[in-house]
């Protein structure tokens, strides 16, 4: 009789490949963080805000294309401008972008501080810089979808409804890189600003309130400087609510809308060079806060 025994411990040393690269660590951190912030593998309540905001951002594009479909190409071609031009679109969905940055972005880093999971991450070969890079990517990608996809959808719709689609593309070729560039700029500025504020607290609610307060205060300061100190449009450089939006609009190019009222009304904006400078300061300042908050304090 055989004396063989079966030992089922279902554990054996891992002999597969361990790829230890910065790119892999950053991408892995970004993927898990983005999925968590967007509510993946969590109850449906966690998905409402990110999905809802993304759908609201698409609203104006759907409406504009719907009107075109209802009125027909013949009528819309005779209008003096686009129903919703590309540049003012950012203004139109500004509150969605800000709400996204205020509510969803803190979700990527505040829970880690709160549950102190950072100690576990740093006990792997992940460095604080890789952690921060992963979190930036995790926050930037969904916000980039919010700032870019509605305009891409609108552009594709405009091509579809144009009498001569190829002619429309040829006439609006410049807008294609500008839509992506402008969307990236807005997403980058608000991602970094949102993360910088969220890095100062472990509570999501505090991060959200802090972000909103900063925008309100900056808007008030800009208003006071503009009207009381009579500094003109350049006083608006302190208005963080619109700073990246104005630069993105300048990138996309101002076009006339048939509706010159409300959020679609043209605004007097600061000089281009000053806008670039202030946005750069905002990006560098936010990055500095982030990396200071997550620098390795010891080894």
């Amino acid at each position, binding site marked *: 009789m055989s004396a063989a025994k079966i030992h089922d411990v*279902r*554990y054996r*040393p891992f002999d597969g490949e*361990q790829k230890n*690269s910065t790119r892999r660590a950053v991408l892995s951190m970004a993927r*898990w963080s983005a999925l968590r912030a967007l509510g993946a593998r969590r109850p449906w309540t966690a998905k409402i805000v990110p999905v809802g905001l993304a759908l609201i951002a698409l609203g104006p594009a759907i409406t504009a294309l719907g009107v075109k479909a209802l009125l027909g190409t013949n009528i819309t071609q005779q209008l003096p401008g686009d129903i919703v031009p590309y540049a003012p679109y950012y203004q139109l969905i500004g509150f969605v972008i800000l709400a996204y940055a205020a509510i969803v972005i803190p979700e990527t880093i505040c829970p880690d501080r709160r549950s102190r999971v950072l100690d576990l991450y740093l*006990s*792997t070969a992940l460095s604080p810089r890789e952690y921060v890079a992963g979190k930036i990517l995790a926050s930037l990608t969904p916000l980039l979808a919010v700032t870019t996809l509605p305009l891409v959808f609108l552009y594709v719709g405009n091509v579809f409804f144009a009498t001569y689609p190829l002619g429309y593309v040829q006439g609006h070729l410049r807008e294609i890189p500008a839509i992506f560039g402008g969307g990236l700029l807005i997403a980058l500025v608000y991602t970094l600003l949102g993360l910088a504020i969220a890095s100062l607290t472990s509570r999501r609610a505090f991060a959200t309130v802090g972000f909103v307060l900063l925008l309100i205060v900056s808007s008030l300061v800009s208003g006071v400087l503009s009207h009381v100190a009579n500094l003109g449009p350049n006083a608006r450089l302190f208005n963080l609510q619109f700073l990246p939006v104005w630069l993105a609009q300048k990138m996309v190019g101002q076009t006339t809308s048939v509706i010159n009222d409300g959020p679609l009304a043209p605004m007097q904006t600061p000089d281009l060079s000053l806008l670039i400078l202030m946005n750069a300061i905002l990006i560098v300042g936010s990055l500095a806060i982030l990396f200071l908050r997550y620098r390795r304090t010891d*080894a």
Partner: protein
Amino acid sequence: MLEPATIEIVGASRRYGTIQALDNVALTIDAPATGLLGQNGAGKSTLMKAILGLVRLDTGDLRVLGHDARREGEQIRRRIGYAPEHECLPPELTAADLVRHLAELRGLSRADAIRRASEVLFAVGLEEERSRVIGSFSLGMRQRVKIAQALVHSPDLIILDEPTNGLDPTQRNEMLDVIRRVSRDLGVRVLISSHILDDIRRTCDAVVVMRAGAVTLARPLQAAAGEADVLRAETVMEAAPFVARLVAAGLACDPIDERTTRVTIRSDRDREQIRDAAAETGVGLLRLHPDGPSIEDELLAAIG
């Protein structure tokens, strides 16, 4: 080629303001499971973080698995698993997702991470609960998740900081069994810190005692085979015939008084000789105990 010691520390010191967290620590750790024993604030956690390369030493050298902790922290962390003392698990993730996530951060492919997460959760007895969110876990289960994530990349050494802290007696027993299994059955070297002597005795082969940042004792927990052990035999009657019988059996005896004798033994067979000699001579063996302090006495004195 000779394998490097698990951990080699020479003259390691680290000060935080007025507190000397590590004070000229010199130590070699090479047992399959080593316990780091000491009261709270003795310097155990600082030493563990220094081993992980997360705390920089003011002076001294520290080598872990042959790597210099000062310069090669990243390489060390790739070969080590770490379970911190404090609560550090995200409550909204499932055990499987967390272990998978950490496996991917340690460089495993997605397919390998899924498979390994299942294996290590099984190994720590959490297979049934792997799809439950960690927030619904008991403290004992959360401690097991910490061990599972530390094992997921098949490290050469795992460091467990106070793994039985806050556990009830049943959870504590289960946790100690898991730790013993990790070092004995899974063949992973273990460094465990605790302020409970019994935890170390039940799980470790060697012990390092720390007090006020310094190492006060480092020794194996079992006497080496063939090492002499001195016992003190106390008899009811006069011990002379008993001693004569022991000497005739080849045991070294040193009478202290009429009824007390110091006997040197080298094996369990010698212990049986003492029992037999007492029965044959009818002296009535009153007590037989180690001469001098026991391991417990020695450890307790070192802890302070």
